[in-house]
């Protein structure tokens, strides 16, 4: 039977309008701009516009030596600067045939996993804040701060650490490092259940996350998504497992893969990754080998001519360094395949048809760092 009054009939004749969400917006976490076409609350089209913080890192490397280039990588994804350094260092080591001492490898992994913890904590805080809960943000910062203090003491910097160099690490860890990290782990083991108690069980939070921002496995593969986002869509893509580097193959940890495909799964995957990182650190912290923290390298490194590709798993996905050498002391071309740049591609499939609130919530679980997109 035909409805007497069709409420839906009049709805169709409404105007769409364009709203720019970003670059100066509280929840794009940086100078990212979404040009959204809205029909009421519903997003009809979304175009990510980037480039507000482009610094030309790839071009700058062409004028710098390999060792100098590493300092630029810290500025890409400032929440995973250890991993960025590591990727660059590894590709140079691979090209020049430099051996890394076991102690340096252990320190690298420790630092990277601590960085992953710190990054995921910041994400946890900002993700919950984007959904509207402000309190978790402060809890995340309380715990992240202890990790940042360790970084500051050991590397001299909190964000742009420039710590990992070809041949090892910049300097040895301090004697305090081990007890401090153990303290952090002890605290985190208490705090992680607290996180879950505060947010996971919350009815509203679950409603905002479950079934929202669906990224199917096929879409994720086609869009070249990596990291926790892809793993939450059921793709196994942890570089630490698939192409181990720096001795990850000797460690026992699980790759967190889930196939829920929605924001809620991405949220849980990251929380689980934090537990795995704690597990990795626990295995290493008492077994840091003695020895050098760095091999002696030549002042000016020269890579043999050729092409090299090295990938590492940062907190947000796979960072690849594609490095073309022409045998001189400077890279001929260095391309950083940054995880955020590829992950940004999900903005459209994730959000078309969703509401503004969903856009913010699902982009929060993608966890973009804008300087890494622009480079």
């Amino acid at each position, binding site marked *: 039977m035909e409805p007497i009054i069709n409420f839906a009939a009049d709805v169709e004749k409404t105007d769409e309008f364009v709203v720019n969400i970003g670059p100066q917006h509280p929840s794009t976490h940086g100078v990212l701009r979404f040009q959204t076409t809205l029909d009421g609350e519903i997003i009809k089209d979304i175009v990510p516009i980037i480039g507000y913080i482009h610094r030309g890192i790839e071009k700058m490397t062409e004028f710098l030596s390999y060792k100098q280039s590493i300092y630029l990588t810290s500025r890409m994804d400032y929440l995973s600067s250890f991993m960025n350094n590591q990727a660059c260092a590894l590709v140079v080591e*691979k090209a020049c045939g430099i051996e890394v001492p076991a102690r340096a490898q252990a320190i690298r992994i420790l630092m990277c996993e601590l960085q992953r913890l710190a990054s995921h904590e910041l994400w946890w805080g900002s993700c919950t804040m984007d959904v509207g809960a402000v309190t978790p943000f402060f809890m995340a910062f309380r715990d992240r701060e202890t990790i940042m203090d360790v970084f500051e003491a050991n590397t001299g910097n909190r964000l742009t650490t420039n710590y990992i160099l070809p041949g090892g690490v910049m300097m040895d860890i301090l004697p305090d490092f081990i007890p401090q990290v153990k303290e952090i782990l002890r605290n985190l083991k208490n705090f992680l259940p607290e996180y879950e108690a505060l947010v996971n069980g919350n009815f509203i939070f679950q409603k905002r996350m479950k079934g929202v921002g669906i990224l199917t496995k096929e879409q994720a593969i086609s869009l070249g998504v*990596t990291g926790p986002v892809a793993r939450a869509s059921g793709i196994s893509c942890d570089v630490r497992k698939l192409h181990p580097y720096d001795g990850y193959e000797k460690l026992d940890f699980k790759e967190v893969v889930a196939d829920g495909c929605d924001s809620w799964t991405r949220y849980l995957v990251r929380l689980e990754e934090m537990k795995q990182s704690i597990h990795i650190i626990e295995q290493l912290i008492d077994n840091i080998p003695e020895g050098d923290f760095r091999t002696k390298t030549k002042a000016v490194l020269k890579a043999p001519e050729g092409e090299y590709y090295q990938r590492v798993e940062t907190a947000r996905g796979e960072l690849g360094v594609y490095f073309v050498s022409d045998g001189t002391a400077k890279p001929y071309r260095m391309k950083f395949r940054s995880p955020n740049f590829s992950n940004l591609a999900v903005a459209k499939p994730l959000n078309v048809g969703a509401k503004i609130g969903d856009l913010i919530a699902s982009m929060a679980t993608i966890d973009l760092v804008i300087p890494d997109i*622009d480079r």
Partner: protein
Amino acid sequence: MNREELKAYLTETFPTATIGDTFDFPLIVVAKENLLEVVGKLKNAPETKMDFLFCETAVDRIEQFEIVYHLTSTTYRHDMVLKVMLDKPELPELPKIDSVYSLLEAAEFYENEIFDLFGVTFDGHPNLRRMILGDEWPGYPLRKGYEYPDIEQTLK
């Protein structure tokens, strides 16, 4: 497939292409015209299933461009590099190549970036725009011998 098997398979399947090596991956250099066909075959063939484009970039080799595609398979986890050599005409004419967007959606942003920084246009790309630098920026910075614009002039 491991590296040797993959190389053998590539040699067998694509007789016209040049098979080689980079440090990490097997390399196949295909002609510009065959790009879509080769990528389509690599993606769909049950032996390779190269369905994941994890890096696409360009290298300016002075006399020509190399467009470099890094492919991997989410099923078999073997990687490979595909290269296309592209003639480099004088500016303002831009070299042209087929977009692989129809096969691998990940190419959209990578190709935007290459267009922006190298000045290579892609046929069949859904939304080719200067993604990073914006339309006003003069020239293509990642080309070798790029002359920097006068910043004062540019910002005006």
